[in-house]
């Protein structure tokens, strides 16, 4: 008899657990099964850091305009659909870029006069963060002391110093010091000149630009990239861009030399030819 009661109690208790499981809201189930709250842990390098080695590329149209934009014609009617502007949702978080009024005017002038002013036309170094989302691949090469980022466009290069060093001079690509925050590579870049642009739409900065980037592997073939852009001479407050970076997974993929100086010589010096260019 006692045994029967005990069995019944056990059965009821069992049913109770079952009912409790059934009654629990669905999201709880999902969480306990797939555990999406657990962040991805990247494979480690031999010295124990998240391994971000590889060839990466942004897949968006931010190089045309980092803000959202519809499709638009290119600068030469003769080229028709080729070299027209592909549309994009933009990579700027939370509304328009917070330009100071006079800086916004300059941005508009830059765009109107882009054929003369756009540094990309002249094959100038792309600066940061633009190098990260030009529509060409770049390779990350990690050693304990240095993380190199080698870009296909113009053979541009960034050295991220993992043992802090001070900038010896201003430069196009700035001076980058890096450190790890758990899974995230944090790169702090300063000491820029005021000559590079963010895109082909005339978005620009001054030599007070300060970029803090965060690169985090979210699975084996994707990095989450975000950057905070601060430049008190140009913007009313710091603002943020974000996008994924995709691993180039093709076998034997490589960064191929893309020297563009030759292609820009008549833009830069055509007017000074003995026989004017036709």
């Amino acid at each position, binding site marked *: 008899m006692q045994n029967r009661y005990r069995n019944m109690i056990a059965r009821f208790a069992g049913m109770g657990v079952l009912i409790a499981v059934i009654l629990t809201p669905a999201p709880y189930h999902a969480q306990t099964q797939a555990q999406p709250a657990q962040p991805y842990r990247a494979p480690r390098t031999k*010295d124990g850091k998240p391994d971000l080695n590889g060839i990466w590329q942004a897949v968006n149209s931010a190089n045309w305009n980092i803000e959202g934009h519809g499709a638009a014609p290119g600068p030469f009617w003769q080229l028709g659909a080729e070299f027209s502007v592909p549309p994009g949702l933009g990579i700027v978080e939370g509304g328009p870029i917070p330009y100071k009024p006079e800086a916004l005017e300059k941005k508009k002038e830059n765009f109107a006069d882009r054929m003369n002013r756009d540094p990309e036309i002249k094959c100038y170094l792309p600066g940061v963060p633009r190098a990260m989302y030009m529509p060409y691949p770049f390779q990350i*090469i990690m050693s304990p002391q240095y993380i190199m980022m080698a870009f296909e466009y113009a053979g541009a290069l960034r050295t991220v110093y993992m043992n802090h060093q001070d900038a010896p001079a201003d430069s196009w690509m700035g001076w980058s010091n890096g450190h790890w925050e758990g899974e995230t590579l944090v790169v702090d870049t300063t000491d820029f000149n005021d000559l590079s642009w963010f895109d082909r739409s005339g978005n620009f900065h001054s030599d007070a630009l300060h970029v803090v980037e965060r690169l985090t592997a979210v699975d084996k073939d994707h990095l989450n990239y975000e950057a905070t852009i601060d430049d008190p001479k140009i913007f009313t407050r710091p603002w943020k861009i974000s996008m994924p970076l995709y691993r180039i997974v093709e076998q034997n993929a490589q960064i191929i030399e893309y020297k563009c100086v030759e292609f820009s010589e008549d833009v830069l010096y055509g007017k000074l030819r003995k026989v004017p260019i036709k």
Partner: protein
Amino acid sequence: MSQRLFTPLGAILALVIIAAFLMPSPAAGQTVKSGTNALNVAPAPSAEAKPWVVGKTPDGQPDLQGYWSNNTITPLQRPNGVTKAFYTKEEFLEAATKQAERDGEEATPGTVEDVHYDHTQFGLDRTQATLTPDLRTSMIIDPENGKLPPMTPEGQKRAADRAAEKRKQGAQYDQAQNLSTTTRCIYMNAGPPMLPVAYNHTYQIVQSPGYVMILIEELHEVRIIPLDRRPHAPQNVRSWLGDSRGHWEGNTLVIETTNFNDKVAFQGSSQDVKVTERLTRTGDETIHYEFTVEDPHTWTQPWKAEMPFIKATGPIFEHACNEGNYSMSNMLAGARREEKRAAEAAAKKGNQ
């Protein structure tokens, strides 16, 4: 101005420092830093040194990492009249001093001829950067005479065709495209083979699993060399620096490069030239560098050269050459101005 002030001082200091290099004391050859920009010679490797054991990177590659320089007075080809492979230290002193004098040669002060780059302001030419202590009379060691081998008839014809093509383009200052690739910020001896250039002969090697990366300061050239024995890129993918593949043979990094474009024309080579480089770390401060050039379309035999890379001080600076190429605009504008003046003078003469 500072170039002129610096030069005689540099030459004198060169003598003093090289003399120190010749002395057999344990301190001989220590790189001498001076308040002024003195000519420095790196310490010569000691014959009695203990065998060097190369360190390993975290993933087990022999460690070539660091900043390096191949600044040297040794020419690629042996100078005419020199018949031996190595100078004595005394002869090296003489050659280095002559070179320092040539580098600092000045024309009549205040004349157009005396206008030249002031390396004390923007770079490190040979007289300022540390020199390798190599006593070779030429980098070329094969053929034994230290000279390039004879050109094949095909190579000679190509050289003549290229010269004719260049003449067709007009005079040097007619257009940007007629100037040297160095002046145009397109190509500055990055190679391969990696040869010293006019200034800032600085390199950085970084290794990651499966790759060796060599950053060349001049023109921020980056060589990313895969080590996984993958095949070369298709042969229609051609470039100035070619397509490099590397592998380790013991402690030696062997890099084979093909797929050059036809504009490189290294010492007159065809685009099908193959360059094989071998880098071996021989000490904390040195990498032994040798390369073989094979191009049956150009030379009657392969040829081989060698030279050391010595440890340098970082960091590498951003060499934004195209971005600051004022000299190109100035030279072309100057040439147009000269033409205009000449035309005006001729018109004036015609009117008289």
